[in-house]
């Protein structure tokens, strides 16, 4: 509990200070690209010389709006004092203006020197450090916001599917891969939002602190974010995967680059009164949606109970093992020693399937398998163990999706399947087959089954053998 509080407090503080930092940095940035290149239209009089001079200075500045405005005001102050002083010495106005401007030197040179003075190495380092800090805080904020958005999308999706089901339109069965599709899509959505906010925070903060236009630092942050968040999306994020989720993950670096450039001159939206009202409203809508969704689910379940599926029969269920191979004749297992085996997880996380000989009779495997060769474990797609959808193997498939040769041990056979690294395992059943004396393959044993979903990174998914 204490650890949880520390985590929440730590991330909360990081996000809080990142928001403070980006707001403080943004004060110098203005609201749009026109602010970075302030131009002043020259007027055709003596003061027009001053306007033209200031325009010449500003043309070289390329600084945030606040800096440009300050430089301009300071130079106007200086010229006002200088011209007054020269006029007091007896010069006419136009000559005084020309003399005051001459003392400041060429406008372009002054602009270049001022720009160099503002964009010091110290400020560049502050911008880089501040950018990294605010990116971390922005990532936390974006992650939290992304989770919220993912849940909203989930609710909307569930409502849509619920409505489609009510009107009789078939919808995808997400149970087949243990909800890997919605789960991976939610995770990708969260990372997409987090990468977007983090990159934008980094650009805005570093631009403000280093006194540069956001677009001039956007390239650096776009590359850095694409690398960091791209790596996180493809290699660093482990969990359930599906093709829609993987495609969404692959968009993470694209979104990071877009976040650095698209409308980057606009300030970040800040949490204000309307945001709070919208958030509270959103929670209300979410709650209502959940209530509606639960209502649909409950009423749907009731109707199913009233009309049992025709697949449910009073006799023993048909597991459709006939699609694998004919059952092994008893004649070739005279002692009945090949027993049903079992399944368990092995140390590497794989599913270990085994078949044993009769422990009472203590028949060696070599004796039990006297008639058999080319023994192998076959993994077949199966139906969910659900009365409405049937039992046993899925008859849509005519071949196993994974096959391993049986390792022969003194009193057992075994094989280890890594279904968590197979893209379309879903519901499965493992059986033992072998070639009999007649040269035909027979099914010797049913070893068990279950359901699984792919678990790994996007890279694991893409490079998976199946």
């Amino acid at each position, binding site marked *: 509990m204490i650890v949880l509080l520390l985590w929440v407090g730590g991330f909360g503080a990081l996000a809080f200070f990142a928001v403070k930092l980006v707001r403080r940095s943004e004060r110098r940035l203005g609201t749009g690209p026109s602010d970075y290149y302030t131009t002043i239209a020259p007027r055709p009089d003596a003061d027009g010389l001053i306007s033209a001079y200031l325009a010449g200075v500003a043309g070289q500045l390329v600084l945030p709006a606040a800096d440009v405005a300050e430089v301009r005001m300071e130079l106007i*102050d*200086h010229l006002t*004092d200088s011209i007054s002083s020269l006029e007091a010495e007896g010069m006419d106005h136009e000559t005084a203006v020309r003399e005051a401007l001459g003392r400041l*030197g060429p406008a372009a040179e*002054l602009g270049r*020197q001022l720009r*160099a*003075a503002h964009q*010091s190495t110290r*400020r560049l380092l502050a911008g880089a450090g501040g950018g990294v800090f605010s990116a971390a805080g922005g990532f936390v904020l974006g992650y939290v916001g992304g989770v919220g958005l993912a849940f909203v999308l989930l609710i909307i999706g569930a409502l849509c599917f619920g409505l489609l089901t009510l009107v009789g339109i078939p919808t995808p069965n997400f149970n087949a891969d243990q909800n890997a599709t919605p789960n991976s899509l939610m995770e990708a959505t969260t990372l997409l939002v987090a990468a977007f906010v983090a990159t934008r925070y980094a650009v805005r903060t570093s631009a403000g602190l280093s006194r540069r236009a956001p677009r001039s630092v956007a390239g650096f942050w776009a590359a850095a974010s694409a690398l960091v968040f791209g790596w996180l999306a493809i290699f660093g994020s482990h969990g359930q995967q599906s093709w829609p989720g993987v495609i969404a993950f692959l968009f993470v670096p694209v979104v990071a680059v877009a976040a650095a450039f698209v409308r980057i001159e606009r300030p970040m939206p800040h949490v204000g009164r309307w945001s709070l009202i919208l958030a509270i409203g959103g929670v209300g809508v979410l709650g209502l949606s959940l209530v509606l969704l639960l209502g649909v689910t409950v009423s749907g379940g009731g109707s199913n109970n009233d009309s049992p599926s025709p697949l449910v029969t009073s006799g023993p269920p048909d597991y459709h093992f006939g699609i694998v191979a004919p059952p092994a004749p008893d004649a070739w297992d005279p002692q009945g020693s090949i027993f049903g085996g079992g399944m368990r997880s092995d140390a590497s996380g794989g599913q270990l399937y085994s078949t044993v000989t009769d422990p009472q009779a203590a028949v060696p495997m070599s004796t039990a398998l006297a008639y058999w060769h080319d023994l192998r474990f076959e993994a077949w797609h199966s139906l969910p163990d659900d009365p409405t959808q049937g039992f046993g193997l899925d008859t849509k498939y005519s071949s196993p999706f994974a096959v391993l040769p049986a390792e022969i041990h003194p009193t057992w056979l075994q094989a280890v399947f890594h279904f968590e690294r197979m893209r379309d395992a879903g519901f499965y059943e493992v059986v033992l087959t072998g070639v009999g004396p007649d040269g035909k393959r027979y099914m010797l044993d049913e070893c068990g089954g279950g359901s699984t979903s792919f678990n790994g990174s996007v890279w694991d998914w893409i490079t998976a053998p199946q």
Partner: protein
Amino acid sequence: MAGKIRAQLLKGTTTLLVLTVLRDGELYGYEIAQRIREKSGGAFIPSEGALYPALHALEADGALGASWRESDRGPRRRYYKITTSGVRMLEEHAQEWASFSLAMGQAVGSGER
């Protein structure tokens, strides 16, 4: 020719002159230029074009702080104030300048003999 020599001698000393006049209190840009001129009895006339980049660079380095406020006689002005870091920088520059001028004095003096 004398003015050119003066300008070259002044090159690089703007920072020292600015920090020196600001040690006595807050001033705005034009006042700084005037104060340098006054304190040197008119001997040093800082280039106004070099003054503002120097002020802004010193501010960026943390040697000066700047704030906008109403002046005693007129519009809002940007006042500069020396910071603790600026005082340290002034001491270092003053020491360097003292060593330099001593060495120059000795070199020029020995040349005359």
